[in-house]
């Protein structure tokens, strides 16, 4: 086989998510009263990147065969923190941004430390840490409020050269600065190897623990970038429990739609980004086709259920039934 075929096979999940998103987005814009305009794209992009950042965060952890149920709460916590800190002069704002991102990194690092060194199951560990992160968020913002440096917020949620949504440019920059180096580093490979077969990775002398730790910590950082962006859009901080939980849930849907295997070791954050954008477009489609918004959560739930079920198909190929339980 030619090289490009292998490349294609590897990227199949990502390309599929890309295709689904494009198809849905075309249907959406062609039925939108305003049509395909810079304004419509900007609004869609601003809504989409929030979930895209959280989905990238989830991808990093899922690759290690783990799951991070605290991503939504890190997203909420950093939103509340940003509504206090990302304000004032340029220097003060910059300090605030660094502090918010650092907090996300720390949250992710705590998750990683508990899972790796405490040997707890990721699902249990991150439910607990997520509850803690939400508790802190609530203390920071008992009621919605606060403010943000509006110049920065407007610049990052506006358009470049009048057409390109700035939030998309930031998303691209994060992919280039965080995802690409990670996925091509030894640590990134260790994260994949640990997710695919931890024992084989151990026997090969792969730095499993450092790889997994990096995945959890960077996951926290990416969720914080999402939280920061939420502040830029809303100009406020809000410790909204339901919204935090929804982001966690949607991040899992986005990851699966993006071709990332919940069994670990397979998939890419770029796929998850398209998965996130596609998932967001579902809501927009319901809107342009005048569905009752009450139906939207049910509809999203069904999509999530179908998406996670697809992952179980490999079990039909197993010939020794004891392997079901491994």
């Amino acid at each position: 086989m030619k090289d490009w075929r292998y490349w294609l096979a590897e990227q199949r999940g990502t390309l599929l998510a890309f295709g689904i998103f494009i198809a849905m987005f075309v249907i959406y814009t062609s039925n939108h009263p305003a049509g395909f305009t810079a304004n419509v794209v900007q609004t869609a992009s601003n809504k989409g990147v929030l979930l895209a950042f959280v989905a990238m965060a989830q991808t990093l952890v899922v690759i290690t065969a783990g799951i991070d149920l605290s991503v939504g709460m890190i997203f909420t916590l950093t939103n509340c923190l940003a509504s206090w800190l990302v304000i004032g002069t340029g220097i003060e704002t910059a300090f605030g941004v660094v502090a918010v991102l650092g907090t996300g990194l720390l949250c992710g690092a705590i998750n990683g430390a508990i899972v790796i060194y405490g040997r707890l199951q990721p699902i249990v560990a991150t439910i607990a840490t997520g509850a803690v992160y939400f508790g802190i968020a609530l203390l920071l913002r008992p009621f919605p409020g606060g403010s943000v440096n509006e110049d920065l917020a407007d610049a990052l949620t506006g358009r470049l050269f009048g057409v390109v949504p700035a939030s998309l440019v930031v998303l691209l920059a994060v992919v280039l600065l965080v995802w690409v180096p990670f996925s091509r580093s030894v640590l990134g490979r260790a994260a994949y190897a640990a997710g695919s077969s931890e024992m084989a990775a151990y026997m090969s002398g792969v730095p499993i623990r450092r790889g997994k730790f990096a995945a959890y910590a960077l996951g926290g950082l990416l969720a914080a970038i999402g939280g920061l962006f939420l502040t830029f859009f809303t100009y406020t901080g809000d410790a909204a429990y339901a919204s935090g939980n929804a982001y966690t849930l949607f991040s899992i849907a986005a990851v699966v739609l993006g071709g990332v295997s919940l069994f670990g070791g397979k998939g890419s954050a770029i796929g998850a980004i398209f998965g996130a954008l596609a998932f967001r477009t579902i809501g927009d489609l319901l809107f342009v086709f005048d569905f009752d918004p009450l139906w939207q959560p049910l509809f999203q739930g069904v999509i999530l259920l179908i998406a996670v079920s697809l992952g179980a198909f490999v079990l039909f190929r197993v010939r020794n039934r004891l392997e079901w339980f491994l």
Partner: protein
Amino acid sequence: MDGAVPLFRMEGISKRYGGVRALEKAEISVTSGSIHAILGENGAGKSTLIKVMAGVIAPDEGRMTMDGSEVNFASPAAANQAGIVCIFQELSLVPELSVADNIVISDPPKRFGMIDRKAQRRIAEEALVRAGAADIHPLALVRDLPLSRRQMVEIAKALARKPRILILDEATSALTAADVAKIFGVLKRLRSEGLALLYISHRMNEIAELADQCTVFRNGRNVASYKAGSKTDNEVVELMIGREYSHIFPPKPVRAPTTAAPVLEARKLSWTDRLDNVSLTVGAGEVVGLGGLDGQGQRELLLAFFGVLRGLSGQILIDGKPVAIASPSAARGDRIGMALIPEDRKTEGLMLPMTVRENLSFAALDRLSRAGIIDRATEQRLIDDMVALLAIKTAGLDIPVGALSGGNQQKVVIAKWLMRQPRIILLNDPTRGIDVGTKQELYQLMRKLADAGAAILFYSTDYDELIGCCDRVLVLYDGAVKRELVGAEITERALIASALNIHGDDAGLKHGEDASLKQGENA
């Protein structure tokens, strides 16, 4: 070879697991530019030896020297650093990564802190060519390769680490004949390049073709080293036998010939590449053993009977009538009445945190309950019967089964199945890791159950048990039954020779038996 300075030496290496001695003052020396074969039966200490060499486990005592200076390996990575690379039986490849990713996994080439994919590709291609597997594409995912190709990648991966000593543990067992020929060419070339190769195999013809030097292990010691070709196969078998006889077995009754259909029969069972046209019968009151080296399809055969494997071809007959056994719950049902005592009691046999009582009644819950409610009185009566029958030592029925000793845990596993009064009992190496006293109780019990009419199929890695317990033994090799030994034919010598697929002359059997007994007394 003789007189050459050894590259690597092990002296007085011992390793114990609990009370079991896996290695006892073992010695070996490895020379550059030679292939050194290690032989021995199950549990002779081969695997422990190479795990010590490869830094996977630390020895309790003894010293290792490389180039004359003492070395200690804290991890597999440390052994790799020193130039010792091991290809284990269990594959160490990561399935979702590409071939190239896997080949460089321990030490990927880097540029600006990131993995240099071009260099990685180049290293992988070179290594694949050196391993004689240039047909494997470096970008292919390991998951998509068949087992034999994966084994070739495993070898390429080892070569990419530039080893000075390469250890191959049954590395050819998954390969096709064409691959084996290729690998032999590669191994001979590596030898001429000055590598030291340690080759562990149960295939005598491979050893004859490849090895320069052979060392035989028995009971954790190296009992003989000789130049390859200087001993006949029968002499080699002679060296391998001589396990210490330490168990007392119940007498075997003389079986009257019967015309009744066998309780359990298999006709040409095949499954993937692990089972190859296996046919066998087990009659009522008979204990049939499964012998052979570990991993020749014995476990799969038991799982096949118990309805665990999918895609099985061939026929299973119960009382002479063909049946389809779709699942363990069908196998244990009244019509078939089968029980499987699994190999790993901790994962397949018991729910460790649950109580002894709960564990005992798991397999028989359907019989103990009416309309879904467990009848406590019946349960208590049956449990009391079982605890008495097997003499289970427990501080109470309501403590977690994990708190019992290994031997008593195993008794619980057996008891829970006996509560169903099975007619067919499959045992998968049931005495592994339990004390001698409990073992003897199990041997008595097995015979008692057979006398009461059960058909028993018994897999054991301990040849001693097969000799002491079985009316007949089927020896498996590469998933096929290679030999059937009946009654007095079941000797250690015959078991080892057929496990290695050597056609030993039966005339020598008597003599060999005597010799092994003598050695046992001396050891």
